[in-house]
């Protein structure tokens, strides 16, 4: 089965034979490694973390270069047509000011109501803020690489969000970088609810940058185009009231939505402590979720 004999040299023949034996050995070692990393996903945590430490700074540096170049181009574009933009922005600002005053009033009312109900307000602690510097390019899984790691207090299982919405949770942490499981990954299930009606739904990634929304109660499809879905905090891993996605299309018993936080355009991602610390310990194991 080994490749054809390379002439009459014994040395070359033996060399070829041993390299053939070695590739079979490599295959078997690979199967063992794969089996171990499927059955016990946490067994290679330190090795994977170290690998992120080596690669993340390079992505980070490259990211800095491209964003600088991109910023110069878009910056030049902004000067073009500046007068129109200025007028438009002024109009928007006036509207936003009104909105903000309304929101402040609502916030105050909310605080009073909460105090009346004696609701315990959990303080949300931001552990670290970093940049998303890369992602899995050739995989069915959706990962992103974040530029903060255990050196900044990041641990596996912590939720990651941006000002726009939920991004995902940490699955590998190195010292200077970490890997985030995006909410658009198929194995990432987020308990959520609709902003309009408050109905509980479940968001699951579809692997192509969108998420699948399913209502918990069977019945009429509750979704409408443009509906916003926010996290409910059920399960305790993801904090509640974080925007997740906007519905773009309905299907027979649910909807397909686009995450509000686009990892490609997020300037800063904030890693938070798990909402309920117990949830971090009970991180769902991949094999337990498999059908």
């Amino acid at each position, binding site marked *: 089965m080994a490749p054809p004999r390379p002439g009459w040299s014994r040395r070359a023949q033996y060399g070829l034979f041993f390299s053939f034996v070695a590739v079979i050995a*490599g295959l078997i070692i690979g199967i063992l490694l794969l089996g171990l990393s499927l059955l016990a996903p946490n067994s290679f945590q330190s*090795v994977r973390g170290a690998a992120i430490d080596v*690669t993340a700074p390079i*992505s980070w540096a490259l990211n800095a270069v*491209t964003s600088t170049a991109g910023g110069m181009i878009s910056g030049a574009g902004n000067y073009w047509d500046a007068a129109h933009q200025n007028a438009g922005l002024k109009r928007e600002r006036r509207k936003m000011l009104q909105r903000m005053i309304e929101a402040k009033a609502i916030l105050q009312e909310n605080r009073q109501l909460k105090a009346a109900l004696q609701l315990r307000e959990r303080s949300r602690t931001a552990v670290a803020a970093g940049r998303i510097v890369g992602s899995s*390019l*050739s995989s*069915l*899984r959706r*990962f992103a690489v974040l530029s903060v790691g255990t050196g900044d207090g990041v641990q596996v299982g912590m939720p990651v969000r941006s000002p726009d919405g939920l991004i995902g949770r940490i699955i590998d942490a190195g010292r200077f970088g970490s890997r985030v499981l995006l909410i658009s990954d198929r194995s990432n299930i987020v308990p959520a609810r609709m902003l309009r009606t408050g109905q509980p739904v479940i968001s699951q990634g579809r692997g192509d940058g969108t998420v699948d929304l399913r209502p918990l109660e069977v019945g009429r499809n509750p979704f409408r185009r443009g509906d916003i879905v926010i996290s409910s905090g059920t399960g305790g891993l993801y904090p509640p009231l974080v925007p997740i996605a906007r519905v773009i299309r309905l299907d027979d018993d649910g909807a397909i939505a686009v995450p509000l936080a686009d990892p490609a355009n997020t300037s800063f991602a904030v890693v938070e402590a798990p909402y309920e610390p117990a949830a971090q310990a009970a991180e769902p194991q991949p094999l337990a979720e498999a059908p």
Partner: protein
Amino acid sequence: MVRSALSSGRRIGQGPRVGASFLPAASVIAASLLAMLPIVSTSGWYPDFGFLVLIGWRLLRSDPWPAWWAAPLGLANDLIIGTPLGMSVVLWSATMVLLDLVDRRTMWRDYWIEWALAALLLLLGETFEYWVASLTGSAGPVAAILPPFLIAIFAFPMAAWLVARLDRWRLGR
């Protein structure tokens, strides 16, 4: 190859570059490192660059590296792109064994046969990746492997061209 050897312009004493025997393996690692480009992809349809270059080298020559190097190269690829550890080790080692078998069976080789072989290996790779992904709790429709598979098929000629150029450069031709 023959024509390039006969043509003039080749200086006397010009031979393989320093470290020519390590260049193929180094180029595979370099291709794996392309995954560190600061691109945030939402669909993940980019081809597995390391695997493409590995197939390119192995189809061009039967001895770009000792066959067993595929295992450590696969391990490096796994660590760089973040797939479950061992996935590329298995896939790349199996590719080397499979192509050794194919080398004994095929009577002749031309460009189309190589492309078809590469397509077969890429399909094998995508299916294997799908199987591993479904074991780690992200099972989806099988059709999800189709777009990246097609893109990889059409990316292969580019990888093969690049590998052929690199091979000529490293041998000083």
